[in-house]
């Protein structure tokens, strides 16, 4: 069974203070690893898909990286508007429901001005 663990559960940063969020996973064949951002009262918003170890993707102040066991979401010089819950999910090639996403519980990021 696919599993995803995110850490820390909550992170409080000062504006401009860079940090990283961790997503550890176990999956029977990785089809893709996904990062989403979720604001209160809204559905998850897609950020990145990573497919293989060593891959990196960037968008504004966010950079996602992938190894065979974990992914990191690096936040450089964050701003208050980056405050949200960041969700990590994997899609495996194993049995069960095809193309199912298995999510972690998320990291609640708060950036103080």
């Amino acid at each position, binding site marked *: 069974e696919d599993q*995803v663990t995110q850490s820390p559960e909550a992170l409080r940063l000062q504006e401009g203070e860079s940090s990283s969020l961790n997503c550890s996973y176990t999956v029977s064949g990785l089809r*893709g690893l*996904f990062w989403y951002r979720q604001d209160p009262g809204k559905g*998850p918003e*897609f950020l990145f898909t990573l497919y293989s170890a060593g891959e990196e993707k960037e968008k504004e102040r966010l950079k996602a990286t992938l190894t065979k066991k974990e992914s990191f979401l690096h936040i450089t010089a964050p701003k208050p508007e980056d405050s949200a819950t960041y969700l990590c999910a994997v899609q495996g090639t194993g049995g*069960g*429901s095809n193309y199912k*996403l298995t*999510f972690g519980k*998320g990291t609640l990021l708060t950036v103080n001005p």
Partner: protein
Amino acid sequence: SAVISQKPSRDICQRGTSLTIQCQVDSQVTMMFWYRQQPGQSLTLIATANQGSEATYESGFVIDKFPISRPNLTFSTLTVSNMSPEDSSIYLCSVSRAKEETQYFGPGTRLLVL
């Protein structure tokens, strides 16, 4: 990405009743999914909505409790039947244009069962 809408956006229901949630997409998509997000828990897949055939349910979810319809490539419904307070949750639909592509989520339906 597709524009996805859900109705209702929120509801308060009495135990023992049923609620049908609608998911509408602005363009045809191959895959539609229904997820549940309970407080403090991970997003969990309930079922894959299949166009023209019965939905595929995940372990722990059954058709009698969560009947799903998908009459075409842009619309699906999820019914939460015979509700109890434990069904209080956010219900989300997601879509992808092809089986292997990224899933995009709707805004969610916030359900409170009293």
